[in-house]
């Protein structure tokens, strides 16, 4: 089975135009990050076509210290630089976990668990009774995690 394909979910692009995603902090939606299982366990097809967290099913990571659904992200209100708008999240730590993951799904908990983006970690990554840290890229027009150019 392949690892998830990194992509902005197509449904998210449509839903942006429907005002279904609000990244403001405060007064915005709650977004979670859920971890995929290792590449061998994750089903094929996760990527641009992913529409909802509910599709993860058995492809979600499991292990000591990890709760299904992942954890809430701390949004940074959207801003712009030049002609690029972007948003950001604070780094996320799953503490004292034992698991292996090949990627992650960012999704909107407030609005029906709608998928935002699928992330690929570039290979299976493991933590054993330790921390699993997702470091988001620098929040600028060239590197931010989500950018509208």
């Amino acid at each position, binding site marked *: 089975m392949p690892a998830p394909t*990194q*992509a*902005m979910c197509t449904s*998210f*692009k449509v839903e*942006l135009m429907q005002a279904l995603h609000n990244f403001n902090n405060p007064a915005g939606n709650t977004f979670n990050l859920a971890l995929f299982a290792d590449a061998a366990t994750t089903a094929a097809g996760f990527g641009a076509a992913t529409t909802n967290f509910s599709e993860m099913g058995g492809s979600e990571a499991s292990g000591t210290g990890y709760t299904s659904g992942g954890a809430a992200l701390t949004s940074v209100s959207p801003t712009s630089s030049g002609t690029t708008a972007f948003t950001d999240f604070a*780094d996320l*730590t799953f*503490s*004292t976990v034992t698991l292996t993951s090949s990627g*992650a799904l960012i999704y909107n908990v407030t609005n029906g668990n709608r998928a935002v*983006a699928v*992330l*690929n*970690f*570039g290979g299976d*990554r*493991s*933590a*054993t*009774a*330790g*921390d*699993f*840290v*997702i*470091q*988001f*890229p*620098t*929040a*600028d027009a*060239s*590197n*931010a*995690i*989500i*950018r*509208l*150019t």
Partner: protein
Amino acid sequence: MFGSESGVEVNSVKILTTNGRGLTPEEVATLCVDRIISVSDTAPEPMRQQALAYKENIRQVLIHYMAMAAAGERTTLINKLAESGYEQAANILKEI
């Protein structure tokens, strides 16, 4: 309105994992400074080296204060454990 060359893009994340321990002050400081300062690979070399040197200076300052915060929290925990009669647990923490 979006122009013909507009797009919605998602960037990659970095992953840091540990086994049998939490993050060290050095690791936390590196995570922190990476969020504060980004140096372009295509910046003019003298400027790039200057920016990288500045970034490393900030990282060293962060390491110092992160270590101070971690040590301070351990001191508080050691005292709380000792006050509650858990001398053995307090001694284990002292040795970290």
